[in-house]
C-alpha cells in the first residue's frame, strides 16, 4: 500500500513538473511573438502615455524571470487576466464554457466505445474474412475524414434536409436548466427535468458522433489486435475445447485482456478530442472552450487565447494522470511491475 502511494506521489510530481514547463512554454510563446502586449491591452486608440501606464500596470517593464514568477503567482490564484474585448475575467469566462466541452467529449468517447467495441469483437472473431476486411477498410477511410467537413455535411444532410436531429445549440428553444455543474445533462438530471435531459442528450448525438468517428479507428485497431492476440493463446483453445463459446468467451477472456491498452488509447483520445472540439463546436453552435478560443482568436484577444490554450493543456495533463491511476487500480500485474522497479 505504501509503495502504491509512493508511486502516486511520484506520478503526481512529474505531472506538476510537466505543468510548470507548460506554463514556461506558453509564457515564452507570448514573449517571442511579435507585437507589444501593453499596446494590445491598452487598445488601438491609446496614447503613448497610456501604453506606458499599461506597461507598468501589467509589470511588463520588469525583467522576464520576474514577469514569469508573477505570471505563475497569478495562475496560482486562478487569475488568467482580463479579456481585452469583453473586459471580463478570462478565468470565469473559461469556467463558464469548459463544462460544455467536457460534456461533449465524454459523450463522443461513449459513442466511440459503442462503435469500436462491437466492431472490434466481430473483426477479431471473424479475422481475415470479408466482414473483417470491410470493417478495417471502413476504419481507415473514416480516420481521414476532416471533422469540420463531416460536421457540415452531416448537419446539412441529417438535420437540415431530413430533420432527424436538431441543427445546433445545446438545448431546444424553450428548454432551460438551472446551472449547477455546467454539464447540461447532469444539471438536468439533478434538477429532475427529465424532458430537458432527453432534449440535451438528443442535441449531443450528432456533434458527439462527428467528434467520435475520426478517433474510433485507433481504438478499434487496438482492441482488434489485442483480442486476436488473446484468441491465439492456447488457453482459449482449451476453453473452446471445453465448450466455452460466444458471450462467455468475449466477456471472460477477450474484454478483460484487451482492456489495458484500450484504456490508454481512450485516455489519449480525451486530449485530442478536446482539441478537435474546436471544429465541432463552431459548426453546431455549442458554447464550449473551443468556441471561446476561436472567438478569442478572431478578436485578437491575446490573453484569452493564452488562457484557453493553458487550460486545455492542464485538462490534458490531468486526464493522463487519471488514466495512469485507473490503470494502476485495474491491473494488479502493472501494480506489481511498477513497484518492483
Amino acid at each position, binding site marked *: 500500500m505504501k509503495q502504491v502511494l509512493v508511486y502516486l506521489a511520484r506520478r503526481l510530481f512529474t505531472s506538476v513538473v510537466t505543468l510548470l514547463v507548460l506554463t514556461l512554454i506558453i509564457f515564452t510563446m507570448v514573449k517571442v511573438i511579435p507585437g507589444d502586449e501593453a499596446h494590445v491591452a491598452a487598445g488601438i486608440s491609446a496614447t503613448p502615455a497610456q501604453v506606458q501606464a499599461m506597461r507598468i500596470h501589467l509589470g511588463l517593464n520588469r525583467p522576464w524571470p520576474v514577469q514569469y514568477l508573477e505570471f505563475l503567482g497569478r495562475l496560482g490564484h486562478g487569475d488568467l487576466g482580463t479579456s481585452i474585448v469583453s473586459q471580463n475575467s478570462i478565468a470565469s469566462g473559461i469556467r463558464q464554457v469548459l463544462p460544455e466541452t467536457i460534456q461533449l467529449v465524454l459523450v463522443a468517447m461513449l459513442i466511440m466505445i459503442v462503435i469500436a467495441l462491437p466492431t472490434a469483437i466481430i473483426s477479431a472473431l471473424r479475422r481475415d474474412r470479408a466482414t473483417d476486411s470491410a470493417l478495417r477498410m471502413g476504419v481507415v477511410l473514416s480516420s481521414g475524414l*476532416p471533422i*469540420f467537413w463531416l460536421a457540415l455535411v452531416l448537419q446539412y444532410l441529417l438535420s437540415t434536409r431530413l430533420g432527424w436531429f436538431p441543427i445546433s445549440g445545446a438545448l431546444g428553444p424553450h428548454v432551460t436548466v438551472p446551472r449547477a455543474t455546467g454539464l447540461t445533462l447532469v444539471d438536468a438530471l439533478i434538477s429532475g427535468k427529465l424532458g430537458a435531459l432527453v432534449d440535451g442528450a438528443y442535441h449531443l448525438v450528432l456533434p458527439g458522433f462527428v467528434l467520435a468517428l475520426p478517433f474510433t479507428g485507433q481504438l478499434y485497431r487496438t482492441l482488434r489486435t489485442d483480442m486476436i492476440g488473446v484468441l491465439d493463446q492456447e488457453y482459449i483453445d482449451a476453453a473452446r475445447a471445453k465448450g466455452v463459446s460466444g458471450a462467455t468467451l468475449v466477456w471472460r477472456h477477450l474484454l478483460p485482456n484487451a482492456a489495458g491498452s484500450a484504456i490508454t488509447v481512450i485516455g489519449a483520445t480525451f486530449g485530442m478530442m478536446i482539441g478537435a472540439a474546436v471544429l465541432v463546436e*463552431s459548426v453546431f453552435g455549442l458554447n464550449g472552450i473551443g468556441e471561446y478560443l476561436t472567438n478569442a482568436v478572431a478578436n485578437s484577444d491575446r490573453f484569452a487565447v493564452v488562457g484557453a490554450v493553458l487550460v486545455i*493543456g492542464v485538462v490534458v495533463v490531468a486526464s493522463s494522470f487519471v488514466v495512469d491511476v485507473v490503470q494502476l487500480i485495474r491491473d494488479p500485474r502493472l501494480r506489481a511491475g511498477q513497484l518492483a522497479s
Partner: protein
Amino acid sequence: MATLTSRPSVDIRLLRKRLVGNRLLNRVVVAVVLIVLFCAVFGPLIAPKSITTSNIRDALRAPSLSHWFGTDDQGRDVFWRVVAGARESVLSAILIVAVYSVIGTIIASVASVGGRVVDETLMRITDAAMAIPTLIFGLGFAAALGPGLRSAIIALSVTGWPVTARLLRSIIQETSTMPYVEGARVLGVSRLDVLRRHVLPNSLDVLIVKWAADIGSTILVISSLSFVGVGSQPPSPEWGAMVTEGQGYIASAWWATLWPGIAIAIATVAFALLGDVVQTRLSQGKKR
C-alpha cells in the same frame, strides 16, 4: 499456434487472394499519392485562370460535363480549384513535416548524447509540449502571427516536433544497446559519431513510415486551421478554405463543400496508407 483449433490454419486460396488484394491496394495507394503530388506541383499551372476570378453568370451550377464538380458562388469551377488547391494543402504539409522532423531529430539526438540532465530537461519540455493538442497549439501560435498560410506553416513547423522527438529518442535508446553500437563505442568512436554513423541511419525506417502518415494528418490540420480562420484565407483554393467558403451556401450548392472535403480525406488516407506500403517494402527488403 495450437493444433486444438477447429479453424483451418492456412487456407491457401484465401492467402493468395489476400496477397494479390494487398498488392493491388498498394498500387492504388501509390497511384493516388502520385496523382495528388502531380496536382500539387502542376495543378495551378494547368488549371484555367478563371479559378480565381469571379464570373457571377456561371455561379452555383450543379455538376455537369462542362463543370465536373459544379461551380461555386463566384462561378468558379470547383474541380479545377480542387486540383489547384492541392499545392497549398499538400506542399505545405510536406514542408511542415520536413521542418519539424529536423527539429525533432535534433532534440532527440541532443537528448541522447547530452547526458542525464539534458535528457531529462528536454524530455520534460517534450512532454509538456505534447500536452497541448496539435490543433490548439497551432491555433494559438498562428493566431499570434496573424492569419494566413505562412503563419499556419510556421506555427505547425514549430509546434509539431514533440512526437518525433519522443519516438526517435526511444528508438535511439533501443539501438544504442545493440552489440555493433557497443562495439563501436569500445573501439573509441565518439558518442556523436556513433549517433551520426550508426544509430540514426538505422532508426530511419521507422521514421519514414511516420513521416508519410504525418503528411496525411498535417493536411488535415492545415485545412482545419483554415476552417477556424487562421490558415489560408479565401479566395485561396486551399481545401479547408474552400469548405469554409462553401458552408455559407451549402443549401444551394452542396458540391462546393463536398468535393474539397473528399479531396482532404483521399489525400490524408493515401499518405497514411503510403506509410504502410513503405513499411511492407522495407521489411521485404530486409528479408532479402
